[in-house]
């Protein structure tokens, strides 16, 4: 494999930014954000350069590696800290650094009045560096380092405004729920090491053919748990909504370029594992299908613009996981959807940030309305993202989502019909709730107070939005043109098996568009053509109540895990206090008690001591008497 000494700069640049901004402290306040943005952009430039080099080589020699140093060398087990850049990694690298850089630029303005802007940028750079390490590591162990780094950076950023207790709690929640997934990944590494003797991607791929299916299934399920935790899939999805506590650029970064995409990356990267374990693969598809509906349903009830977008992310990632669960046929489309999603979701989050910026940080959509006139640029960029996400041709989402639906339907048999039907239904619901967001925010009559002064955001904020909007429009077409992206990634995956087409592609597209049209129509009728209250109405269906409470995800988590956990903990505390502390204190008390009772015999009177000697002598004589009798 070709080696290349330039890969390390991809990670080193943002990492240098993070370290120097954190170490320099207040001295870097004036220019820290510029340095961070420049380094992120530099990393993007290195990525582009690598892409150009990669395009210049023939298919076989496209992946390049770089060994940084020997990390672990124990007997026959060797792990090097080395990087791997192949077609999959470069896609992620460009998405992460490209979108990441745009978000950096946006944040310069968005966070301009925050006293801790330098720290914010340091964390952003750290996030980028960790995510790059995650996608560039050539083994599960290297990936794990980046994986944990992403977890740390997300914790720091979600809780960036940790002076508010609720925000700090949200970051803790995200971190703790991620830990469950991290445990899955560490178990996966252990399984790989124990049964395959290697943890590198190439090594596991080689041995996957010879390993038993049970081993691969266990490995696959552990990897799935990891992906579920990081990508906020069912049943570890609860942290995503609360993660909106972070500043809006962080939400954009988490949802579009980093963090939640890591799970998809992990599953696609481990394609050889799932191909060898059909049951685990099916489980992946099922999880994806559940989550895409789950997220979509939550999205229909949220009035908080960021939470509605978060629910939509959950749903869209569900599409990707579903695609990744469909095997070789779906991997490329999952990644393609991930990239197009990166454009339009980042654009919409930045748009939401722009709206909040103009509305005094108001997030309740019921207090918006008619912002189209006041924020035309935001309206246009957001609207393009909206058209992309609901899958209107020729916008980006149409190509990627359509292909996912088609692949799901063609998965074969009942499985295909169920998964494809779910995906189709999800498309309809997505159209409904995204239209709802659009209408409530931009086109319905105004519902805000007179002391609000909605205004367009500065250029530094809308330019990134505009670039992302362009991406939302054209990226799907470009990637799908002649199935370019599919062919680009194809060398990495096994050849997909032949499937009979359940329905011709044109019919699938027609069905999907019909679903979208229905969703849009319902939303228009419900929100555009009828009055919308500025407070959420209470006389709604039971289902809406459920959806507003995230389909009871927190309640279920609390009932299933938190309460029993607390009960066990308090029982353990009681046991600790009564039994263990009791024993320790009891020994102490015994010593004190026997000491104080013995002390009573120490009267200080010589005669009482003499009496004791006499008693002792009598006892001694008695003992002799007993023995000699």
């Amino acid at each position, binding site marked *: 494999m070709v080696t290349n000494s330039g890969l390390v700069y991809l990670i080193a640049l943002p990492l240098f930014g993070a370290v120097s901004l954190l170490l320099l402290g207040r001295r870097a306040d004036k220019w820290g954000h510029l340095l961070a943005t420049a380094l992120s952009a530099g990393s993007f430039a290195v990525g582009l350069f690598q892409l150009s080099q990669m395009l210049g080589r023939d298919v076989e020699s496209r992946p390049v590696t770089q060994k940084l140093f020997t990390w672990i060398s124990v007997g026959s087990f060797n792990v090097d800290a080395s990087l791997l850049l192949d077609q999959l990694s470069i896609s992620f690298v460009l998405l992460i650094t490209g979108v990441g850089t745009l978000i950096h630029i946006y944040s310069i303005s968005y966070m301009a009045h925050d006293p801790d802007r330098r720290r914010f940028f340091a964390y952003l750079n750290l996030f980028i560096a960790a995510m790059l390490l995650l996608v560039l590591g050539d083994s599960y162990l290297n990936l794990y380092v980046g994986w944990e780094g992403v977890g740390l950076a997300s914790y720091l950023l979600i809780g960036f405004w940790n002076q508010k207790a609720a925000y700090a709690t949200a970051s803790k929640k995200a971190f703790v729920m991620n830990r469950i997934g991290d445990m899955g990944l560490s178990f996966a590494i252990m399984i790989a090491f124990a049964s395959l003797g290697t943890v590198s991607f190439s090594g596991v791929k080689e041995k996957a053919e010879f390993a038993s299916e049970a081993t691969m299934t266990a490995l696959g399920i552990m990897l799935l748990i990891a992906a579920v935790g990081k990508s906020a899939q069912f049943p570890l999805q609860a942290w995503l909504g609360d993660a909106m506590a972070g500043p809006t650029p962080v939400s954009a970064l988490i949802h579009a370029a980093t963090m939640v995409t890591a799970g998809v990356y992990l599953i696609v990267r481990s394609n050889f594992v799932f191909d060898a374990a059909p049951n685990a693969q099916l489980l992946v598809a099922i999880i994806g299908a559940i989550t895409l509906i789950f997220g979509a349903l939550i999205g229909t009830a949220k009035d908080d613009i960021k939470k509605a977008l978060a629910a939509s992310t959950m749903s869209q990632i569900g599409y990707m996981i579903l695609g990744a669960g469909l095997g070789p046929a779906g991997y490329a489309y999952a990644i393609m959807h991930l990239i197009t999603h990166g454009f339009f979701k980042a654009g919409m989050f930045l748009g939401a940030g722009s709206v909040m910026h103009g509305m005094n940080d108001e997030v309740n959509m019921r207090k918006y309305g008619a912002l189209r006139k006041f924020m035309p640029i935001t309206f246009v960029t957001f609207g393009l993202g909206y058209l992309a996400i609901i899958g209107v041709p020729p916008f980006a989402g149409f190509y990627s989502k359509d292909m996912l639906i088609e692949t799901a339907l063609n998965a074969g048999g009942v499985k295909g019909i169920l998964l494809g039907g779910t995906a189709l239904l999800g498309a309809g619901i997505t159209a409904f709730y995204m239209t709802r967001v659009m209408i409530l925010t931009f086109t319905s009559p105004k519902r805000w107070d007179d002391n609000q002064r909605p205004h367009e955001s500065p250029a530094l904020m809308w330019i990134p939005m505009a670039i992302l909007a362009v991406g939302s429009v054209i990226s799907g077409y470009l990637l799908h043109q002649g199935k370019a992206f599919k062919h680009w990634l194809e060398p990495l995956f096994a050849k997909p098996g032949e499937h009979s087409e359940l329905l011709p592609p044109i019919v699938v597209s027609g069905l999907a568009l019909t679903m979208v049209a229905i969703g849009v129509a319902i939303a228009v009728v419900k929100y555009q053509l009828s009055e919308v209250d500025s407070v959420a109405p209470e006389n709604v269906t039971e289902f809406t109540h459920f959806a507003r409470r995230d389909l009871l995800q927190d309640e279920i988590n609390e009932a299933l895990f938190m309460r029993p956990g607390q009960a066990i903990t308090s029982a353990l505390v009681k046991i600790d206090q009564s039994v263990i502390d009791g024993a320790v204190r009891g020994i102490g008390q015994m010593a004190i008690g026997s000491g104080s009772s013995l002390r009573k015999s120490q*009267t*200080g009177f010589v*005669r009482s001591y*003499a009496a004791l000697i006499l008693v002792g002598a009598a006892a001694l004589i008695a003992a002799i008497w007993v023995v000699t009798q």
Partner: protein
Amino acid sequence: MDINNYLYLSAILFTIGAVGVVVRRNAIVVFMCIELMLNAANLSLVTFSRINGTLDGQVVAFFTMVVAACEVVVGLAIIVTIYRSRRSASIDDASLLKR
């Protein structure tokens, strides 16, 4: 008469001396009771010497006397010293060890 009677007498005198040590408060009387106990032991030694037909018991009794003399000398000196500082010969007054 059985020669063991001397031993019984010795035991009784020893016990009486022991009771005296515990019961009496005057330091000098306590001391005298200790002397009584030593003498009772000496009687036993002399009797054993006679039973065994050797003089070793008497020699040991002789040593006991010497040691008792030493003890009396030092003990009485202590009593005098205590009396000088505390104006009392009661051993209950010398109970400072408790504190």
